[in-house]
């Protein structure tokens, strides 16, 4: 019996058909994610990391190999997986409250139960008081928090984040990283997988950083991050790890330090 929220990817291969030519997008992907782990996937654009995530979400269906959630093969989307997209994708015609409650609509919970769940999650992401507000009135960071709350209301085993902070400005982004860490710590048994191309963000948040390379997309290296939390971005160990990862992308060390100043 596998634990709830375990993801097992075995010998995954995915090809796309473009004008009759088959191009491999992902090849020989093997990845194990334990319950409650925070894993980041990082790689250059075009390395297939988004395709990998879409396969786990279930938005792409045909693949070779196995993607197993709790030992069961993934086939199509399901409420056991929550998703946060880069563009928050809140429905503009629903208030924040109803957006967050979207996933509960099918469930006939008793009086006010759904309302309580929604309230609790708004509190979790720090959006109390914004229940009746429409998405167009929210800032980017707030909208993304609402999207995170929406993804969590169904108590998914797995939270999949597709560059969730990619569209935010640098300061909001750092702030949201703190928030995301807090959320992850409070929802201790939810496994989180995040796609990013920000190395610092990956190290700051993850237990494991998966580095991918492109054409075809393969896993180049998996680096464990065992720094104590909350992590200090300026610490020596943090910088060393960052350097190590950047080296994988053949970026020189000087760049790292000039960037850090």
């Amino acid at each position, binding site marked *: 019996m596998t634990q709830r929220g375990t993801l097992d990817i075995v010998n995954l291969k995915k090809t796309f058909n473009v004008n009759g030519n088959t191009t491999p997008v992902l090849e020989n992907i093997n990845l194990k994610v334990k319950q409650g782990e925070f894993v980041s996937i990082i790689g250059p654009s075009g390395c297939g990391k988004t395709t990998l995530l879409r396969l786990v979400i279930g938005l792409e269906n045909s693949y070779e190999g196995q993607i197993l959630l709790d030992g069961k093969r993934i086939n199509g*989307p399901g*409420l056991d997986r929550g998703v946060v997209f880069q563009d928050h994708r809140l*429905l503009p015609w629903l208030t924040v409250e109803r957006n967050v409650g979207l996933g509960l609509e099918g469930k006939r919970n008793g009086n006010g139960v759904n309302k309580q769940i929604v309230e609790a999650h708004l509190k979790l992401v720090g959006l109390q008081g914004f229940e009746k507000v*429409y998405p167009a009135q929210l800032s980017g960071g707030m909208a993304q928090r609402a999207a995170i709350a929406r993804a969590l209301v169904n108590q998914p085993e797995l939270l999949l984040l597709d560059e969730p902070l990619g569209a935010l400005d640098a300061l909001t982004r750092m702030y949201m990283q703190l928030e995301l860490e807090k959320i992850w710590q409070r929802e201790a048994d939810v496994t989180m997988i995040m796609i990013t191309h920000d190395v610092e963000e990956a190290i700051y948040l993850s237990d494991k950083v998966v580095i991918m390379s492109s054409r075809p997309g393969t896993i180049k290296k998996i680096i464990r991050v065992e720094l104590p939390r909350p992590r200090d971005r300026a610490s020596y160990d943090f910088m060393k790890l960052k350097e190590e990862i950047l080296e994988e992308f053949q970026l020189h060390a000087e760049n790292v330090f000039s960037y850090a100043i």
Partner: protein
Amino acid sequence: MDVNKVVLKLRGLALPLALLAVWWIITKNEWVSAVFLPPPETVAATCVKLLLKGKIFVDLNESITKVAQGFLIGITAGFVLGTAMGLSSTIEKLFGPLFNAVRQVPILGWIPILILIFGLTELAKIIFIALGAFYPMTLNTFDGCRQLKKEYLEVARVFEFNKPRLLWRFILPSALPSILSGIRVSMSEAWMLVIGAEIFFKTRGGLGDMMWEAKSKVQMDIVFITILIIGLIGFILNHVMKILENRLLRWRSSN
């Protein structure tokens, strides 16, 4: 209200007042026969007389009843066909070409054939009005149903929404702006066509008939007043729809 806005409002009044003055001077000096241009005071007096006599309200009521029936039939049919074509590409391919072909015929061109088939009846007029409301409603609803972005469809899939919930929560709300403007356009179209129907079908009753009769008797003052009333009602209908749109589409504004 700041001074600038008051100035702008006052400027807007300048031209109408000047026109009124010119009108008054022309009629005072009888440069133009009162038959073609009755003096402003005569028009005002006739207006009061008409309102007191009350027959105008009977005509008004008749026009509005007719337009309401035609409009409701037209937008309902347009909503159904537009949604069906928007949701199913098979239905679109089936009905689209015929719809587009029929639409090329200017709406007034249908009058003779409607008269031939249905005679000079209320039914003929209502069908005529409904047809006029039907086109813009169908087009706007169809367009609206195609508005939903692929990204949102993915959200629906992630939450495992079934077809009816997808329609209710995603497709119709995203189509709403387009549908509402369809209703507004259909409404002003229907309002124009009810006047047209009363003129072209040459039957008794309604504001259009009142106008036509005034024309035949060369009662210019009544022609003026009916134009004014027809314009005013058109304006009110449009305005009410706009208020409704703003209320229903509050989610679009960022403040």
